[in-house]
């Protein structure tokens, strides 16, 4: 038998299942622009579409300072504390 040491950070990823969908969206929705070119256009289309289908939702826009780095901790906390849903717009 060979024994080796674990080279990873030993954090076993938590498997998460998607929340149950009921076809309705209401409450607070965050739209996060990662600041890649044309990501804002994609988000605007989402906003228009969602606003027309789900008039009860309250949409708040957020943006990362740069797409190249993780969102700052303060921004992540702000989004988590004040929203029920999040759509993050990627690009490329």
């Amino acid at each position, binding site marked *: *038998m*060979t*024994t*080796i*040491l*674990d*080279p*990873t*950070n*030993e*954090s076993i990823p938590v498997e998460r299942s998607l929340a149950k969908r009921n076809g309705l969206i209401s409450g607070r929705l965050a739209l996060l622009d990662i600041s890649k070119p044309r990501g804002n256009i994609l988000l605007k289309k989402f906003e228009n579409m969602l606003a027309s289908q789900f008039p009860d939702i309250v949409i708040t826009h957020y943006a990362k*300072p*740069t797409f*190249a*780095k*993780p969102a700052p901790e303060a921004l992540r906390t702000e989004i988590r504390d004040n929203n029920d849903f999040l759509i993050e717009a990627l690009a*490329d």
Partner: protein
Amino acid sequence: MDLNKQGEKNMTDAPLPAFVLENSNAGHTSFPGERSALICFIKADCPTCIAIMPLLEACFRGMQDKIDIHLIGQTLQGNLELADKFDLHAPLLDDSTLKVSFVYDIEIVPTLIWAIPPGQENKRLEGFDKAEWEALLLDVVEQSQGSNRNTTKFPAKSESTGLLFDWATLPKWRPGCASLSADPVIAERLQAEADNNPLRARKIEIAATDDAFEFMYDQGFSDGLPLVPPTPERVLRMLSGTRREAQELIAKVPPNMGEATIEKIAVNAVMAGAKPEYLPVIIAALEAACTDEFNIHGVMATTMGASPVMVVNGPIREKIGMNMKLSALGQGNRANATIGRALRLAVRNIGGAKPGGTERSALGNPMKFTMCFAEWEERSIWSPLHVERGFNATDSVVTLFCMTSGPVLIVDQTSRRAAQIAGSMGMCLTNIFHPKAQMVSDTLLVVCPEHLDTLARDGYSKENLRNRIQEITMLPMADLVVDDNSGVGIPTDKFANMSSEMQQSKLPKFRSNSDIHIVVAGSDAGKFSGAFHGWATGSTGSISVSKKIEET
């Protein structure tokens, strides 16, 4: 322990480790007891041990009622052979696991230790020096029997000890043999198994029926090439390359913000094939990579296919045998190859940056396996990279540069003036990102010795070279406008709205001269410099970072 004279070691205040060993009478023997003890470590294939076995047996017969006699053999088969050969009454204790020998720091057999209650080491002798052994036994007898040593039952005869043993049959001096526990391979295993070992990483047991190499592939540890299994012994050996504590936290590695301790870095360094003396470089490189300035998360995640290039400066280059000359950027040198690979494996395994996960490179990049080299400072006419970046020449430093392409060759075998060589370099750098992309990236220029000589003849400084590159790569704004040949560049409507003065202005390739990093490396023959093309430079991309390397 240090020898203060031949055969005798310094006494320490710490009590001797307790032990329980199986003995040859099918029982168990424990230490410490309530009495003084003579503990002797032996092995059957040691001629000195064989020579003194009659004396040890005599000690047992003559002194067992006064003190404990523990004869500890290092192999079970050897114990059987000794018991048979010398018709021993003294039980032999089985330390074939060598754990007691290891914790007693036994380097030589025979080693004789006189322990006094409650388990304190009083004296230790290594090898066999008849005068020393006789003196020690005299002391033991005196202390255990007071002034009546002549009445001892010891069946020996000696004027000095009063013990009835024919000392004339013994050699005057024998050096002894190496303890099995001091065998380098065995000692590493014993250290790894010792209670006080510094390892805390989760142990993974690979069944004997499994192939360790295939297992590591299956676990996703590998970059695609075979890995050296990071056994506890190898990781301990790797940790000997640094004075830093194994559990010291060096950085949190994105994207999973995994905690990179010295131990975890060492595990990945072992897998990469690195040697212990490379570890300080790898540690410093990971520290640099995980700064906000270098932004390893963005570097690994970008669809462009970026990767760190490591440049090593200072005395450590020679100390660990790095290549800075012929094929400096290529294969064939263990330090160059494995230091770069260890950094990448650490980012992959500790941080979790893997292709298909957060690593989203469209094409990938062979430099994602490894890219590390040293600057040939002694061949250069200029200040080396680390001195330019504020370190002392005597410091050892690693600098990380984020590359997306390269090394792209600058082929110029005919220029004979510095301005021409520098001009060629500038022309070859116009393709970084795209010929129409100005002031977005940086470069790491690797100047070969023959090009350097041409630059030196005309007294070119690094700043002269940078200025010439900026001059050569300067393009009129009008040349940067989107056209039918390429959709890259300034949008036509934006250009149309510019002032006439702006439209007629020119832009250099690099935002500033400091975006042109210059080092010297390569063989003396060959007019081929090279350039690594950068990624998005600046605070929203990656900025080169240098870290001082711990001197060991």
